[in-house]
């Protein structure tokens, strides 16, 4: 996205939400929803609109794991690391995912298809181990199922 368009998008989002009480998180969510991440050039715009310092805005963005300051891959895959999933093999799944994708958490595959992230509970503890693929939760995932899901993502991209 050209910088001008991006700035325009950010300004539009900020203007839409700035009047609502506690607008900071809704603004950041809307920016990330639109752009996939929160670029650094959003910080001064938000700061000015909400009468907060740039340091405060940066502080909020960096506090919350959900907000990304780098563009993610075309798909985001989150693996649950919490207790219920650990009780049924999440650590093995995590190791498998890292090695099969060849990346660590918070990194993106070389083809830009998948960003891998850790998550602490998806509320799918009755169907552990659980992962999230974009906005879909998937339950009872093992290594083979993980690979199949990634293959489906790549196949769908190839078709598109």
């Amino acid at each position, binding site marked *: 996205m050209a910088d001008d368009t991006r700035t325009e998008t950010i300004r539009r989002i900020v203007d839409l939400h700035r009047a609502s*009480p*506690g*607008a*900071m*998180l*809704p603004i*950041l*969510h*809307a920016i*990330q*929803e*639109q*752009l*996939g991440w929160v670029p650094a050039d959003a910080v001064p715009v938000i700061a000015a609109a*909400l009468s907060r310092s740039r340091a*405060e805005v940066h*502080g*909020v963005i960096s*506090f*919350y*794991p*959900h*907000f990304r300051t780098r563009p*993610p891959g*075309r*798909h*985001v895959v989150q693996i649950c690391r*919490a*207790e*219920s*999933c*650990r*009780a*049924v093999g999440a650590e093995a799944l995590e190791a498998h995912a890292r090695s099969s994708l060849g990346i660590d958490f918070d990194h993106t595959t070389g083809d830009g298809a998948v960003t891998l992230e850790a*998550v*602490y*509970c*998806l*509320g*799918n*503890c*009755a*169907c*552990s181990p*659980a992962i*999230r*693929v*974009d*906005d*879909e*939760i*998937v*339950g*009872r995932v093992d290594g083979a199922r993980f690979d199949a*899901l990634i293959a*489906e*993502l790549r196949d*769908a*991209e190839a078709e*598109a």
Partner: protein
Amino acid sequence: MSPLPGRPKAGSLPLGGVERGFRGACSAPAERAGCAEPALCAHSAKGAPVSTRVFVPIDSAALSLGADRVARAIADEAGRRGADVTLVRNGSRGMFWLEPLVEVDTPAGRIAYGPVKAEDVAGLFAAGFLAGGAHPLALGRVDAMPWLAGQQRLTFARVGLTDPLSIDDYRAHEGFAGLARAIALSGAEIVKEMTDSGLRGRGGAAFPTGIKWRTVLDTAAPEKYVVCNADEGDSGTFSDRMLMEGDPYCLIEGMAIAGVAVGASRGYIYLRSEYPHAFGMLQAAIARARAAGYLGADVMGSGKAFELEVRIGAGAYICGEETAMLESLEGKRGVVRAKPPLPAISGLFGAPTVINNVMSFASVPVILARGAAFYRDYGSGRSRGTLPFQLAGNLKRTGLVERAFGLTLRELLYDYGGGSASGRPIRAVQVGGPLGAYVPESQFDVPLDYEAYVAIGAMVGHGGLVAFDDTVDMAHMARYAMEFCAIESCGKCTPCRIGSTRGVEVIDRIIAGEARGRNLALLDSLCDTMLAGSLCALGGMTPYPVQSALKHFPEDFGLIPDQDKQAAA
């Protein structure tokens, strides 16, 4: 309006076999013209004389096991056969080993089939499942199934039974009866009902709800708020999510009653970003409740206003702590506030604020509808009413069991849970989330009530159980508890911020066998400091899983029990 969390969809996912969209949103009064997925819509065949209602859950967990594919397969097969089927996307019954659990409405009751795969659907039709026909997946009448038959579902009465977004369905099952009664009462009378019911905060702290509401009611202020803590971050818990996805009006009604009671005209639901489906369901339900006059400027003709908005968290576990949640709602870092002042006196934007968990608010409608005594008659000791227990981890049968307080872990793990999924002995159960103690087999018979659990150094918390079999390494889990605290600490207080990192290091040294006696004493002292000196429950309770693991499973730390005692002495 908050955006749907997650990144924009570059293309639809092939996971569900259907275009990803918010399926539940298609049953509005205007749906017949506007539904994008008529085949998956509850109302496409409405008005047809002999249509058979088939229920396929829309709960995230059911979706995570392929419920959408099953719904699509049923719609397709019905189309091929010319069968008149009305597909209803209900909440989950909470029997996740059987999901996707399909139910067919027959004259003999709702007949269940599960777990159903898309490939099973043609066979189900061939077996006459629309008339409740016999099939290897048939489970009989769903309400007669042993898992459900013995439960005491007060909070979850409607979940799985109704169409989550149908206001008519909700009203037909006692919905809004509590709110109707509340608006005829004074604020003080509503609060008295809450106090008399014995309801205590279901989020984990178990503080009496009536006392909290009383404080807000008695604090004069031009603006007051009602905030629902839907940041259900504890592993092993999913009851909030199930209720929001399966019966969202119940939460809305409970919050509206709170608003009417204390004189608050505005409410927020602080929902975690990990729950995209719950978000969609709440947004749709709030819009409909407003259109029907249950929210807005004049709640049910009472002349009282109550507006409700969903705000999305951003992946910080600490925002489940009530003051960190308020900071987050105000647009700041989720850093814990020192108390006092209590949020009930100075909460959101400095105004008196009722803060309750989803389960607490969802318990309110039935208390108002049936009266405090009805609710109080369930339970044991000072733990009144019911708790929706959540069975998770290594169990054969996982899911939701709502029962009165006083049953035991053994009943839940074996009678309901069927023992471990792996077939190995259950060795430890973490009760009440990542800050709850690990309970060993010797304590499985302690009744589950708040006080009895405190007496054994554990906590009931939000009622989540995570079972581990005998392959678990408890030293590893203790280390993870400290690691989790280090990752999620808000950083405000030193015992939590630094203590958790030091805790990981000390446990590593103990595991490695480095000066065990000295390091055990150090860990003990560190846990004391965290317990006594942390601002909130994150640092203050992380020692519970750590110390319970050490106490009950010393062998995993390279100690034998006797040496442990000597080392500590």
